[in-house]
């Protein structure tokens, strides 16, 4: 692996890591398996594409994407809490709906963003080369997100969301409306995913309606790899672990792509299979370990 590939994996790991922190919020904190993310990542990208091509400031485009993601998450959560649709199904419905919505937003399946201003421009104007500028921005944004999410989970509201996922009967009898907490939590999660989508689109110079395929699996892989490597004893540790897990996951992919076994070589289209197998192993390892011990 070249240094260039390592740097690329770090860059990708950080920007997708923001998405993975969002997945952590739903999957681990709220115990709400949320597939909306496959639609809200391209939603962030689509909103950004529309905003940037309309000449809106790229930083405002980030804010608009965050708002869009939050709304998408809210829709899923409202379907689940108020209308009693199973959480998994609710999120699939929102995801499917977002496919059409994203194409409407972009007025087509994809938009090129090569000739527009992006959030990396201020750094590039300072003389920092393009690929480093994006890494610097991603480090900055990821650090802000980690600090922000950790802080939030220690506030009254954040603790109530934590308790909602852990013991909804307990927190209800403390006077918290768990529906509101789920709507807020899933909204926040998707806001982060859309932010990630916006940054990815600005970085790769294009927004594509299909860029969200497999987001949830990549997010889960990052969460689980992070937990295995760094542990999840405390909240700050768990969230840093998710980010680290995302970077490790991208490194692993970069390595897998270079893999050659005689005639056979791994192609990018094999990635989803590799990721799915990785997640299955990580999810089932504890159960299998137990069974082996018993027999």
């Amino acid at each position, binding site marked *: 692996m070249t240094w260039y590939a390592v740097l690329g994996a770090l860059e990708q790991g950080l920007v997708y890591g923001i998405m993975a922190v969002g997945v952590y919020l739903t999957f681990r904190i709220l115990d709400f398996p949320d597939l909306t993310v496959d639609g809200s990542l391209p939603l962030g990208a689509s909103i950004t594409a529309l905003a940037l091509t309309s000449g809106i400031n790229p930083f405002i485009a980030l804010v608009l994407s965050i708002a869009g993601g939050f709304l998408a998450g809210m829709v899923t959560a409202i379907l689940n809490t108020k209308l009693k649709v199973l959480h998994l199904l609710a999120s699939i419905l929102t995801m499917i709906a977002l496919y059409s919505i994203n194409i409407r937003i972009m007025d087509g399946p994809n938009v090129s963003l090569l000739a527009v201003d992006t959030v990396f421009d201020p750094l590039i104007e300072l003389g920092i080369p393009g690929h480093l500028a994006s890494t610097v921005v991603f480090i900055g944004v990821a650090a802000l997100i980690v600090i922000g999410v950790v802080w*939030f989970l*220690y*506030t*009254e*509201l*954040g*603790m*109530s969301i*934590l*308790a909602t996922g*852990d*013991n909804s*009967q*307990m*927190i*209800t*009898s*403390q*006077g*918290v*409306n*768990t529906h509101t907490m789920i709507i807020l939590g899933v909204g926040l999660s998707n806001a982060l995913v859309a932010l990630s989508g916006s940054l990815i689109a600005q970085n790769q110079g294009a927004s594509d309606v299909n860029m969200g395929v497999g987001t949830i699996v990549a997010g889960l892989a990052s969460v689980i790899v992070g937990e295995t490597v760094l542990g999840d004893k405390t909240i700050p540790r768990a969230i840093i672990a998710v980010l680290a897990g995302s970077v490790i996951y991208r490194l692993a992919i970069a390595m897998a792509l270079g893999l050659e076994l005689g005639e056979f070589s791994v192609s990018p289209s094999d990635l989803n299979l590799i990721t799915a197998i990785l997640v299955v192993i990580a999810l089932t390892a504890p159960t299998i370990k137990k069974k082996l011990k018993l027999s």
Partner: protein
Amino acid sequence: MITISNLIKYFHKGSVNEILALDGISLEVKDGDFITVIGSNGAGKSTLLNCIAGTYAIDSGSIKASGQDITVWPEYKRAKLIARVFQDPLLGTCASASIEQNLALAYKRGQKRGLAFGVKSRDRGFFRQELKQLGLGLEDRLLDTAGLLSGGQRQALTMLMATLIRPDILLLDEHVAALDPKTAHQVLELTREIVKQKKLTTLMVTHQMKHALQLGNRLMMLHRGKIILDVRDEEKGKLEVKDLLAKFYEVQGEELSNDKMLLA
């Protein structure tokens, strides 16, 4: 104060499994009443508590508490007035949160929650002092997660959390049934202490007739969704286990003879 009138609660209404769990319960609980509720399995004791707390929606009747009609209030809104301790020690506390976080969550019962830090440093002294009353050494373990505690410790913590802010009504649903006898005794003593000290209006469901007789100033027996015995103060003081058993057999005997009639 709670006023319940003609409360009816069905389970699986309209299906073959339809059960009439509460059959027109009317009940007046005065401020400061400590009522122990007994009855055989399926008598409706826990259902009654769950209906008061708002976990179950009722089919008809009305519930008033502290001068407000709370019949259609959702459970979380009733938490402003009502605090609970459950039979399952795991239900009352948040396992992944620390002891102080659990207390902080309870210290905001029924109030708006915002973006201030959940655990305020100014409250820690108060939490320690309250935990000290439990005599379990939890005051030195504020940062331990509740999941590390034993069932008895968690139940004691839940008891403290329920009364950290004085509730208008305290509901105890067989809260010592899942504990070993020694721990059960400790938690029961703690209950007596806290209820007396804070003069709480309390409903306590129990399977143990002994506990029902030892605690409280009023005793109720439920059978098939109806209140079949309701005694208070001096009259309750005179009750003994054998009186309660006699009452049990009386109603169960009725059932038996009814069955015989059916079969004949």
